[in-house]
């Protein structure tokens, strides 16, 4: 079998493989060879980047074992997942809760920037309960330590207020519903699971027993892109509610 030539066709082929997030170069010889060419040949490297840019994609990482990791170049990209793709028709409070649930899950797996940088560190499995507690306990603590003006309009009330106001769980509620803390975390975890950001490593009928571990993709996306966006978002904080 001959090794592939640097060509636009092959560059597009590699991008196509990268878009299949479930594919792994380990079980795909063509993918493996194209990746090797991408790493070895600067001209092909540029071609692949051009194809990706044309498709509104950005290349974050390329390893022979885990493949090419591409992400949507902007939130306007046709490939980007949006909140409404996860669940439509949510109120601003529920949207905020779902965003915070994603951040809490990421924080449970990668609490510090160091562990995010350290490729040899594999985060221990975590349960839905751990993610839920990280989010809820912090929201409650902020509620207790922050003196919020009583006449604050609802649209300016901080996110922790939205979380602390939610019931922890809805009794006998099986479906992941955006109306409780457990429900919101469950929606986020389920969606991350479907998109290959976390892996279910112990399946159980009972939510309490199921545990999840993050995939390499979650680490890379967080490290190369999402963490900076989160940092920029955090700078938007309004001065009225300060963290002590």
């Amino acid at each position, binding site marked *: 079998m001959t090794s592939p030539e640097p060509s636009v066709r092959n560059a597009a082929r590699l991008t196509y493989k990268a878009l299949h997030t479930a594919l792994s170069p380990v079980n795909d010889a063509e993918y493996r060879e194209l990746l090797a060419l991408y790493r070895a040949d600067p001209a092909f490297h540029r071609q692949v980047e051009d194809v990706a840019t044309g498709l509104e994609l950005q290349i974050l990482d390329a390893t022979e074992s885990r493949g090419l990791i591409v992400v949507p170049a902007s939130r306007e990209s046709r490939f980007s997942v949006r909140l409404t793709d996860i669940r439509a028709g949510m109120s601003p409070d529920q949207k905020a809760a779902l965003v915070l649930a*994603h951040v809490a899950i990421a924080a*449970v797996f990668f609490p510090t920037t160091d562990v995010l940088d350290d490729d040899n560190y594999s985060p221990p499995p975590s349960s839905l309960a751990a993610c839920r507690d990280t989010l809820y*306990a912090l929201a409650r603590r902020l509620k207790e330590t922050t003196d919020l003006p009583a006449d604050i309009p609802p649209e300016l009330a901080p996110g922790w207020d939205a979380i602390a106001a939610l019931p922890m769980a809805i009794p006998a509620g099986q479906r992941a519903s955006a109306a409780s803390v457990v429900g919101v975390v469950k929606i986020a975890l389920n969606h991350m699971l479907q998109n290959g950001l976390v892996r279910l490593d112990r399946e159980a009928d009972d939510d309490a027993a199921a545990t999840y571990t993050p995939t390499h993709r979650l680490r890379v*996306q967080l490290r190369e892109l*999402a963490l900076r966006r989160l*940092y920029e978002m955090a700078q938007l904080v309004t001065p009225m509610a300060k963290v002590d």
Partner: protein
Amino acid sequence: MLGGDEAYRDAVQGIDTHYLALSALDLMMEATTVASGSTSSEILTHLAEVALRIKPELTAPYARRIGEAVLDGLDNKANNHREFSFDYFDAPSMSTRAFRFRLVRFEPDLDDVYRYRPTQEGYLVYLGMLDLSPEDAQELMEKMLELLVQRGSFKAALDIAQRARKLSLEYRQLIRDRLYQAYRAPGSVNWSRDMTGRLDSARDHVRKRQAEDARMEDAVQGSLLEASDLQTRISLVALRDTLRGAGLIRMQLVTDINVAPELFIEAQRAVFRARRPTGLPDLESQLLPQLLNLSAVTLADQANNLISALYPPSMPRIYDLNSVFALLLEQRSDDVVAEEDDGELEKFVPLPDQFPQALIQRANDWLATMFARGATWRLDQLLEAAEDAGMNKTLRRCLVLILYRAFAPSESEYKTVSVRLMGETFQLDVAQGSNLEFTPKGEPDDIART
């Protein structure tokens, strides 16, 4: 299964749901002495039993349904388990404010078993509308108790002692909630800053109460030795037992506090990781708290920034190859919330024409005479000829537009001439750009081209 709603309404007749609600709160409070609250099934069983005691002719399914209704009421099920809220007039600020609260919390204990327990407002409902902190209220009760024992009102003293015991329960739960929070998310708590002071004051509070209790118990014991009336003796024994019960709860609190640092260290060890200084802030200790401080509206606005960065590309569903480019070029709009205010309707005022109709007519007439001569004209030649004919600048600008418009056969007013691009440019005072050639149709040159 339970028959029609009519039958249910009949069954509820004569049931004191208020009492049932308080009884459920009582059960949850008592359950905090052994666990961190009651499970849903414990409460439902209890409520069904109480309902049957109130109305023995109830059938078991109805009794259970009444229990469910009461528990759902406490947990605000009708409003999707949201917080209760009521508006009240706040005199100092002269404004109406909303007070939001829960009566019960449905939360997991350390073994992840979901249990109900009363909130501070739940205790407040139970203990009456005396809004004192549990530790202050306990001191108040002690003073009352002392006075009542001195006066020999043992029955009233017993009532007060029982309330004081409930306050001990509440205080213990308050402290324990804080501790559990710290165990669950050890990364979010700075032990010496957030917890030590609070635990020290709790320890101090318990020590003082225990000293008072010992004194009270002695006093009650003394009265017991002197009392001969049976009813008084019964009250005194109950009073002594209640005081001891409250003492026991405080002892449990002392144990909670004493083992707390050790449990916390263990919880921290479980999530231990080395922290070194780095560039971007850490997710758990810095970014998450900061993001929680953003307003819900800001978070909702920024949601797609994060979600699009966090998730891998998702393949848009394309059902037809023709739509690929349309999809890729499409600008996706945000999830817009329809504005309530549609704004005002304004009358549409058409823009005035750039050139008056008479002027356009004059330009057209002049051009028609030029083309009628049957010669081939270039655009710049026509404009120069117009200038020579004494046409002003406005008229010549109008000519430019008419001539360029004539480039498109469908727009052309002059069907007898064909227009082609010459491939060279011209520059005049009224216009500059690609030069055009106007050839009368039917000329040999023109036929050869077509």
